[in-house]
């Protein structure tokens, strides 16, 4: 996940006169004495009853204060932590100099979705974890994510949505399969190279997991639409209701003149636990629950799609998707919205911020506990969930301590509905339609260092290659794949010439 650090390039940029001057305005020692800012958040007891965004963003004053903390290091290790290699000190220093739109341009050099990344990236384990403050001063890293969001939001609200420089159109048709973060990134990058790009999306709406998965209170849909619109302005075409492998095959699209393909069909196959009673009504995957609420607007009277929620909702799992689900259930009116997780809070894979927000909003956590069976009423709707307490043993392959069932510790929890958020597997549709495409034993698609699959001209990235990962890793794949596709086409033209 780490990008290479092109030290010479960053050093040269750092020596620019304006940055030199800016650095000298405040002594490093004084910079390190500035207190770290905190995100402004909506009142937990207000926000847990509505879909308003939890993080309200920074004021200009807060953003400037935080920009002063950044030391503009000689060796900007933060960039190593960024999967798309954003030039972090450069954008922060533009911000510090007061040129916020300039800062936004820097973000967009490597990242076509900065307002999204500023909201959903796990910065605390990426760029911010590599910050000088953390590495050398045992302090708190610069709030890079919050600043990224501030700059991207400012740009959205105060510019006409300038698009990056595009090469002359070359008329070469490229296909992108899936409009989630990986697909959008490839589309934007290929458009910059001058390609004629079409994105095919299976659902009726664009954005993939950004739309059906991540809830409004964490990532407003209007922001996703704004970013997609910018990619449209770059000349990228979008086709919804089109499943490559079903509506038309890759061979069909080749016949229509597409020269190379990027498969970003995502990790759309939810895992279940295979325990008794799991198929009772009212037990649903996190994908189903979130899709009904986020994509189909279930719970809003104007929309026809129903959803199971209720007074007592249990969400099984401890990842970000589990947090999104349980906080959504609370907002749908649950009196008890409970996380049941088999390890302890320390092992929980969800972002620290999501766990903190969930606790503030009144989410209950039943940790070191795992479901063993479900029971239903006479109509087959889940009513009770039997759980078993767990102890922690030696670390397993993931490095986390392995949960061990405690015999005789079972007890029952009353439930109106249950959401299963124990991970996802790769969507199988493309693989089913192309048996010759090489896959791993987990059914993810095999790719080489340029993100090319076993079939020349066919590239893949994001969760279809990684299993379930993050938005920013999918985007990192997208950047790499766009380069790979560009080289592939250049070589093809050379061979044909």
């Amino acid at each position: 996940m780490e990008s290479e650090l092109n030290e010479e390039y960053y050093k040269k940029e750092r020596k620019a006169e304006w940055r030199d001057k800016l650095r000298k305005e405040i002594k490093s020692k004084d910079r390190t004495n500035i207190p770290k800012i905190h995100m402004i958040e909506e009142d937990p007891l207000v926000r847990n009853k509505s879909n308003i965004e939890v993080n309200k963003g920074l004021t200009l004053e807060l953003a400037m204060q935080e920009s002063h903390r950044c030391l503009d290091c000689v060796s900007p290790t933060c960039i190593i932590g960024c999967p798309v290699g954003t030039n972090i000190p450069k954008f922060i220093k533009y911000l510090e100099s007061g040129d916020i739109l300039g800062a936004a341009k820097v973000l967009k050099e490597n990242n076509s979705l900065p307002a999204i990344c500023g909201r959903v990236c796990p910065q605390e384990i990426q760029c911010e974890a590599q910050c000088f403050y953390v590495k050398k001063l045992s302090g708190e890293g610069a709030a890079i994510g919050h600043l990224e969001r501030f700059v991207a939001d400012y740009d959205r609200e105060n510019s006409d949505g300038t698009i990056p420089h595009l090469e002359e159109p070359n008329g070469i048709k490229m296909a992108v399969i899936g409009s989630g973060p990986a697909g959008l990134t490839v589309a934007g990058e290929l458009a910059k190279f001058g390609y004629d790009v079409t994105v095919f999306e299976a659902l009726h709406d664009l954005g993939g997991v950004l739309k059906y998965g991540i809830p409004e209170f964490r990532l407003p849909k209007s922001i996703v639409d704004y970013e997609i619109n910018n990619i449209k302005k770059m000349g990228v075409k979008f086709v919804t209701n089109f499943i490559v492998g079903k509506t038309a095959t890759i061979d069909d699209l080749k016949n229509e003149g597409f020269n190379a393909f990027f498969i970003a069909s995502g990790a759309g196959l939810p895992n279940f636990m295979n325990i008794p009673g799991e198929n009772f009504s009212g037990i649903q995957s996190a994908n189903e629950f979130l899709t009904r609420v986020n994509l189909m607007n279930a719970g809003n009277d104007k929309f026809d799609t129903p959803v199971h929620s209720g007074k007592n909702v249990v969400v099984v799992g401890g990842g970000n998707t589990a947090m999104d689900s349980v906080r959504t259930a609370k907002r749908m009116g649950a009196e008890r919205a409970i996380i049941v997780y088999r390890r302890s809070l320390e092992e929980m894979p969800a972002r620290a911020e999501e766990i903190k927000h969930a606790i503030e909003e009144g989410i209950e956590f039943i940790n070191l506990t795992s479901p063993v069976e479900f029971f239903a009423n006479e109509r087959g709707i889940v009513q009770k969930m039997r759980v078993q307490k767990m102890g922690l043993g030696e670390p397993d392959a993931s490095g986390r301590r392995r949960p061990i069932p405690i015999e005789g510790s079972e007890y029952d929890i009353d439930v109106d509905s249950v959401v299963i958020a124990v991970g996802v597997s790769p969507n199988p549709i493309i693989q089913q339609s192309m048996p010759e495409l090489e896959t791993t034993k987990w059914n993810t698609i095999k790719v080489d260092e340029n993100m090319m699959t076993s079939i020349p001209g066919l590239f893949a990235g994001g969760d279809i290659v990684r299993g379930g990962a993050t938005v920013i890793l999918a985007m990192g794949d997208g950047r790499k794949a766009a380069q790979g596709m560009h080289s592939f086409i250049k070589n093809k033209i050379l061979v044909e010439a």
Partner: protein
Amino acid sequence: MFKIIEKEFLSENVARFIIEAPYIAKSRKAGHFIILRIDENGERIPLTISDASIEKGTITLIAQRVGVSSHKLCAMNAGDYILDVVGPLGKATHISNVGTVLCAGGGVGVAPLFPIVQAMKLAGNRVITVIAARNKDLVILEDKMREYSDELIIMTDDGSIGKKGLVTQGMEEVILREKINEAIVIGPAVMMKFAALTTKKHNIPTLASLNTIMVDGTGMCGACRVSVGGKTEFVCIHGPEFNAHEVNFDEMLSRLNAYKEKESENYSEYLESLEAVSV
């Protein structure tokens, strides 16, 4: 946007639509289904493709009025546009020449059965079709079925057309009379349950095409999951056809009723709102 080219009612509550969808028309095979969404506020509803024309770039869908969404759909007419249609989804029916095939359809399940009858006949099988409905007015696709079947048996609850009795009685009659190599049953879950029990008794390999609740139809949500041979399968990507003798129809029935209360409440409200408007 997908244009409705033609629309007609086949019976009081069952309508047939011919819809412009050239890609789907070209890619679809017997057994495939689509998901549609009428408008911005609509649900995503799965419907089996009943027929298609590659030349005209159209697909045929048959829908029964049962709730808010299907009511809204059945109120649409030729010239109207359906906002979203995606497909073809699911695995196509495995069609081969096996000898004699018994095809049994109940109610609106006759619609998805038709392309299978057609494909089985074109593959050289002897095709015996049994279709069942409550009464004469609810029998659909009689002529089309007759065209592709070596024999067509119609069963009605009241005997107003064909023979009086259940679909299983019609099936049993054929099974006792001649050797059946394969059976296909499509209809309401209860009908499929008993049809499967009938063929199981005689050890006839049988496929059932399941019509479960779905959201995306691409494997993403798992709303459509069913137990087949004790294993959880997704109807949208592993089906819609499964070994009928292994499907847990009771579980499927229960899951089909998952939103029943909410749905009938919404439907009554919707019907009331229609009346209020017409007054």
